[in-house]
């Protein structure tokens, strides 16, 4: 079951995800949520994965799709608060080389200001 919450901080749209991001785990997909933010003209998007307890290949695919969709609209998409499990998953799949990610929200927000 995936839950989500979006808020704005320092000019960055933060998408906070919680729960499991797996095949069929939510009515709304991460992809839809990102499309929605892009449609609202957001160019700086941060996905907070701190509350994500489980992710499968569908979840990874959603992350990749979010990334490429954002890039096509010249938006910046970054990640923050990866748990050890999610970090391991990104490393194993070498998606860690694709994403820009930060340990804390402050660091992540600061990175958009540079």
């Amino acid at each position, binding site marked *: 079951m995936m839950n989500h919450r979006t808020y704005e901080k320092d000019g960055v749209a933060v998408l906070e995800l919680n729960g499991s991001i*797996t*095949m*069929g785990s939510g009515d709304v997909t991460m992809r839809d949520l990102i499309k929605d933010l892009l449609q609202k003209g957001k160019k700086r998007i941060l996905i907070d994965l701190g509350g994500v307890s*489980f992710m*499968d*290949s*569908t979840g*990874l*695919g*959603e992350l*990749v*799709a979010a*990334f*490429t969709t954002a890039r096509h609209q010249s938006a910046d998409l970054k990640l923050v608060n990866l748990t050890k*499990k999610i970090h*391991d*998953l990104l*490393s*194993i*799949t*070498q*998606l860690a*080389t*694709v994403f820009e990610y930060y340990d804390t929200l402050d660091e992540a927000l600061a990175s958009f200001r540079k």
Partner: protein
Amino acid sequence: MADAPGNDLKVTIKVRSHLRYTDLLHTVLGQVARLVGLPPERLDWVALALREAVNNAVLHGNRNDFTKWVEVEMESSGGFLAIRVWDEGQGFPPEILSDPRRPENLFKPNGRGIFLIRQFTDGAEFLKGPDGRFGLSMTIDLKKGETKEESL
């Protein structure tokens, strides 16, 4: 459990081919893991492998036809846990699999399921059942503490 037949666990679960059963199978694996002594830090990873195999069986093997069946066997013996996921499809030629870490694959949203299965189990092979069914067999070495990937 002193009176339990230590290395002779076998659980077979047959469900209609539908994603709604993936969580149920995940839960059963959790129970089986406790019974066979899978190191707790491996459970999430083995569960991930199981979920990938089951989702593939439903979507690719049985092509979303929920009059078809998915059968999962979990069997432990000699320090190994074998998990077999059967569907009613034809299987696929392994040549179609491509390493998702290659630059041309890195940005694709799909194609990481079998790769993850191979990473998080200690052996994965494709089976053809006597009844023509396609099976994916995954083996877990219960003595290994962490995931196969040592290089993390």
